[in-house]
């Protein structure tokens, strides 16, 4: 039957969006074809050195995902492949994919690199942005998946050297192009972006002057795995620069080139590069960022900006005229620019980094044209309003920078949303095409003499440049029970993992120690590897010689090496005592609790209900809708009230959604898959996941006469007054809007993100109602990121006057007879401007709900310093909490516009479905157990446990493993030491600290 839905999804593009969408879908019961046009997945994120605002090493956080995606049983990766044609209908598409020949058999290639050693041809490396070379046979980057080489036929001279060198017989020059037909139910497009070609702007000198480079080139220069191993030098003469300039908006906010949009990410990445550049040198380094508006609008971004200023990064608000080369042979550069007051300055720099914008690739645009998808005027995919992820063709969804420039967290969020939406479409076909992971039977190692394998990681140069890794390995070889010790460039890469399994077999290893980075990020990965080698996952111990050693003792290589040795000694001593821990699995309650009945909560609830799960939607107020009830028009002019009405109707009519209005959460207990929550109504709910979408509030200003004059409005009030035809507004001749009221202030040091676009929209609305009205916007930076920049341009064209103020010189607002007197200093003329305003609109901050603190304690999930909920990881887990099974969406996470909240709500549902779709969940295993004959039933543990896990059974305590959270407080407290915590038994911990003081 042609209408039967297919339980497989095609994901196009293997960057972080495609990887996340693939993983979410595969974990939710769908088979995934991931089609990537280059020879490896990883995308642009793989090229980045660090990521803002946490300065996490990009590769370190991406690499586990590459491995997970690469080794997933239900993800089929097709590299060097392009989608040619799509036929069929939503639920059942036939996709034609053309796969170019690699000339290397991926199955046979071990990634050893002997072929590249032998290859005589050198060409510029694309991955390194043309800085440095690769061979004609190459692997794009060290951690690439697939971990296999590829022949670049255009440059290959067919000399046969690689074939001779390859011991695996993997090279096959006769490979030809193949055409595949795939049957899928839905398509997720994540082809990413291309960087703007800066040579189009002659006056910046890119391509003419060797020391003018792009931001992506600079990322590669900074990267430990880059062309200069992380030494920050000019590519031209390999000299360390002393003065670096960044130029913002290169190919962005440029309507002459039809790149009128803002690329959204460049302000943050320039700040990051400046901060990281300073860390890369011991000498003083001057860093200057030339910008128009500083757009640090995301979560945690404003603080990052402030921190950069404290660290001496210089910010110059300016317009660049041109860059010329200094004619003294230094190849230094002279930047001529106009300051804000119109004066001209000239400064010399050693290196100029162009913050290039993002644009859609021609190939992706062409694909969209073939698929008949609507594009916007800039060639990005046009999103369906209030969908977050829908294209103009049903069944085809989009995520990432291809539908608008965006940073990694938003890309990941949108990928999860697109995955969730695809899953919803194919709900009835869930689980029909997936296979289950089977591990080899566990070897019984009880009673065996410990045989320990120690794997020490260089982490590129993250560890190896400080800690002398070979010395650590030599020391480890002499430790008791150690039968193998070896060093790895990246222990987490696909090839190292394969080697690890082989070595475990070969040396009959029954305990594994990895000395590398943080167990927080990498323990699960290594544990899965040892499971694949037939070992129980508890037979694993990690020594963190990066975060706890090389990174924090960067300038003391001797002491760091000694410390690394100690950490390995300690881990090995503990490893010798490790015992296998049985896995306990539990069923999953196929129901969700969604807290918050605003747009985000309702969207999450609907997605989950459409996936077929029972949903309990709890709203503390008597009606649904949240703050959106006060919004009249979307940023693209959408009719919000009718959207909201239809959403509320769908929620109310859905048979799988049970509404709990006027209700709050009273108590909650349990764990992922098996939560029990009691509501204030007394009702008890069993659910497998929780979504927190409790929204936020508009700040009630205490400044600018708010509450003292009926001519002063907040944005939401002004919007309401406008819609209602309030005579105060319709009769006004002059309106003033003031930005950053309560935001970017010491007591609220974050940007509220949506107010700039909102004020510009309100200004346009006022102009539309009364074109004669004088409208002024007093701002600090206009942050109309992405395509919202079009609104800003339109407002200026229609005569809205924008005047910048500084926090030191804020506008003065006074009551006058029949009007409000606003005095601001004009940023161009430097003189005070007095405006007699009839109405004043305040862009009041978005502030967290007062109940957040209470919910945070109830659900045991953290808040950030600003009082918004804090996700598990700023970059890669933007809708997850660290506590498994609890997710977040919407304004509760931080300020965002309606469209973004909807995407996040769908993402939370998508992530939640990875839990709900499972038949069983495995317990973490590290639980407390009671030795019953030692227990005196004193009740200490029963009284102590916050999770009610211990109870008395047959005159002794018993701890319910599925309730136990593994904190071990009972083990520490038990007076008779009858309780022990798996993996952290006292004798293990004592052996561990004891090893520190033993000589090898």
């Amino acid at each position: 039957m042609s209408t039967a839905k297919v339980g497989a999804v095609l994901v196009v593009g293997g960057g972080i969006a495609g990887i996340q969408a693939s993983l979410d879908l595969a974990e939710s019961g769908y088979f995934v074809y991931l089609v990537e046009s280059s020879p490896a997945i990883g995308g642009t994120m793989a090229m980045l050195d660090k990521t803002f605002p946490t300065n996490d090493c990009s590769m370190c956080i991406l690499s586990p995902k590459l491995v997970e995606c690469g080794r997933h049983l239900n993800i089929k990766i097709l590299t060097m492949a392009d989608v040619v044609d799509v036929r069929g209908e939503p639920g059942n598409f036939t996709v034609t994919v053309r796969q170019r020949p690699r000339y290397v058999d991926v199955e046979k290639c071990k990634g050893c690199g002997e072929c590249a050693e032998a290859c005589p041809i050198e060409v510029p490396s694309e991955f390194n942005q043309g800085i440095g070379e690769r061979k004609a046979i190459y692997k794009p980057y060290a951690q690439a998946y697939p971990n296999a080489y590829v022949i670049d036929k255009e440059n290959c001279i067919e000399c046969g050297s690689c074939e001779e060198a390859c011991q695996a017989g993997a090279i096959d020059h006769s490979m030809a192009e193949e055409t595949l037909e795939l049957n899928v139910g839905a398509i997720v497009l994540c082809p990413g972006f291309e960087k703007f070609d800066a040579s189009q702007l002659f006056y910046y000198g890119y391509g003419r002057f060797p020391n003018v480079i792009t931001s992506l080139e600079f990322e590669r220069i900074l990267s430990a795995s880059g062309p200069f191993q992380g030494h920050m030098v000019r590519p031209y003469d390999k000299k360390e620069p002393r003065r670096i300039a960044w130029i913002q908006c290169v190919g962005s906010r440029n309507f002459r080139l039809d790149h009128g949009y803002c690329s959204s990410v460049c302000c943050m990445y320039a700040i990051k590069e400046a901060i990281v550049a300073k860390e890369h040198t011991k000498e003083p380094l001057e860093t200057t960022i030339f910008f128009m508006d500083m757009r640090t609008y995301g979560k945690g971004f404003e603080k990052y900006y402030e921190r950069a200023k404290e660290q001496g990064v210089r910010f110059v608000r300016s317009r660049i005229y041109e860059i010329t080369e200094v004619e003294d042979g230094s190849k230094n550069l002279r930047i001529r620019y106009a300051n804000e007051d119109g004066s001209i300055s000239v400064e010399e720099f050693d290196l100029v980094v162009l913050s290039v914008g993002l644009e859609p690739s021609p190939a992706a645009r062409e694909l969209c044209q073939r698929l008949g998808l609507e594009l916007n005027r800039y060639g990005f995919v046009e999103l369906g309003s209030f969908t977050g992820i829908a294209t103009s063709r049903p069944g085809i969804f989009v995520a990432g920078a291809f539908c608008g420039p965006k940073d990694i967290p938003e890309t990941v969020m949108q990928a999860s949303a697109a995955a969730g939406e695809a899953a919803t479409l194919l709900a009835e076909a869930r689980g029909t095409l997936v296979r289950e992971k089977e591990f080899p039977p566990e070897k019984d190692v009880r009673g065996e003499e410990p045989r320990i394998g120690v794997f020490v990681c260089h982490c590129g140069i993250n560890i190896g440049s400080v800690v002398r890794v070979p010395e650590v390995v030599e020391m480890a070889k002499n430790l008791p029970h150690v039968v193998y010790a070896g060093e790895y460039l990246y222990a987490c890469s696909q090839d190292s993992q394969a080697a690890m399994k082989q070595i475990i077999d070969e040396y009959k290893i029954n305990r594994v120690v990895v000395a590398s980075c943080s167990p927080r990020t990498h323990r699960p990965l290594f544990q899965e590897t040892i499971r694949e080698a037939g070992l129980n996952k508890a037979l694993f111990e990690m020594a963190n010689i990066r975060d706890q050693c090389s990174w924090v003792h960067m300038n003391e290589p001797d002491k760091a090496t000694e410390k690394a040795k100690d950490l390995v000694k300690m881990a090995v001593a503990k490893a010798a005592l490790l015992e296998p821990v049985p896995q306990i699995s539990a069923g999953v309650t196929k129901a969700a609790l969604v807290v918050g009945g605003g747009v985000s909560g309702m969207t999450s609830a609907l997605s989950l209900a459409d996936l077929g799960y029972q949903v309990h939607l709890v709203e503390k107020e008597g009606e649904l809708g949240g703050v959106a009830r006060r919004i009249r028009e979307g940023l693209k002019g959408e009719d919000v009230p009718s959207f909201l009405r239809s959403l509320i109707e769908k929620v109310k009519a859905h048979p799988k959604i049970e509404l709990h209005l006027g209700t709050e959460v009273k108590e909650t207990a349990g764990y992922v898959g098996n939560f029990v929550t009691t509501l204030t109504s007394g009702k008890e709910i069993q659910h497998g996941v929780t979504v927190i979408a409790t929204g936020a509030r508009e700040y009630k200003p205490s400044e600018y006469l708010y509450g003292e004059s009926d001519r002063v409005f907040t944005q939401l009030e002004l919007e309401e007054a406008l819609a209602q035809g309030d005579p105060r507004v319709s009769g006004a001749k002059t309106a003033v809007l003031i930005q950053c009221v309560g935001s970017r202030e010491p007591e609220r040091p974050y940007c509220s993100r949506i107010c700039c676009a909102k004020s510009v929209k309100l200004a346009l609305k006022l102009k539309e109602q009364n074109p004669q009205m004088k409208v002024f916007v007093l701002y600090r930076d206009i942050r109309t990121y992405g395509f919202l920049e079009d609104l800003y341009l339109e407002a200026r064209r229609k005569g809205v006057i924008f005047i910048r103020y500084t926090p030191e010189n804020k506008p003065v607002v006074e009551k006058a007879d029949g009007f409000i007197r606003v005095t601001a200093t004009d940023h161009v003329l430097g003189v005070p401007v007095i405006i007699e305003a009839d109405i004043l609109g305040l862009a009041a901050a978005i502030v967290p709900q007062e109940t957040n603190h209470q919910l945070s304690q109830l659900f045991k999930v953290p808040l950030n310093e600003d009082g918004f909920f804090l996700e598990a990881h700023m970059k890669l887990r933007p809708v997850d909490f660290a506590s498994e099974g609890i997710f977040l969406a919407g304004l509760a996470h931080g300020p965002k516009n309606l469209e973004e909240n909807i995407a996040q709500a769908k993402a939370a549902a998508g992530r939640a479905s990875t839990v709900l779709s499972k038949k069983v969940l495995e317990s973490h295993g590290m639980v407390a157990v009671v030795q019953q004959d030692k227990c005196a039933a004193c009740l200490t543990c029963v009284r102590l446990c916050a999770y009610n896990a211990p109870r008395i059974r047959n005159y002794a305590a018993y701890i319910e493993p599925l309730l136990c959270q593994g904190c071990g407080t009972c083990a520490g407290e038990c007076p008779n030491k009858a309780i022990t915590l798996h993996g952290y038994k006292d004798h293990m911990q004592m052996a561990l600290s004891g090893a520190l003081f033993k000589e090898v």
Partner: protein
Amino acid sequence: MRLQYSPNIRIVEMPCSGTIDHRVILQAFEDGADGVFVAGCLEGDCHFQRGNLRAKKRVQAVKKLLDEIGLGGERLEMYNLSSAMGPRFAEIANEMTERIRQLGPSPLRKEGGAA
């Protein structure tokens, strides 16, 4: 952040500060540690509800024991900080190192000299 701090600290990972037993702390001193500090979540913000408060009690008890045996309770300290407080961790590491330097090597150490 990669804030630099004194390299003579060795971190022992625990699921919760509440896990730590008196004996584990005492054993560390017996083996030769000059000082021990227990780092738990901020009070009221324990990831496991109240494990850090139990840890605090135990640390107090062991401090008393150390005083009684003449080793000195000031060689042991409990600190509270969150995982988002990198700078505070580095500060504590340096603070504790300085305190122990002032006190000198533990008399229980078989050989003298700073770690």
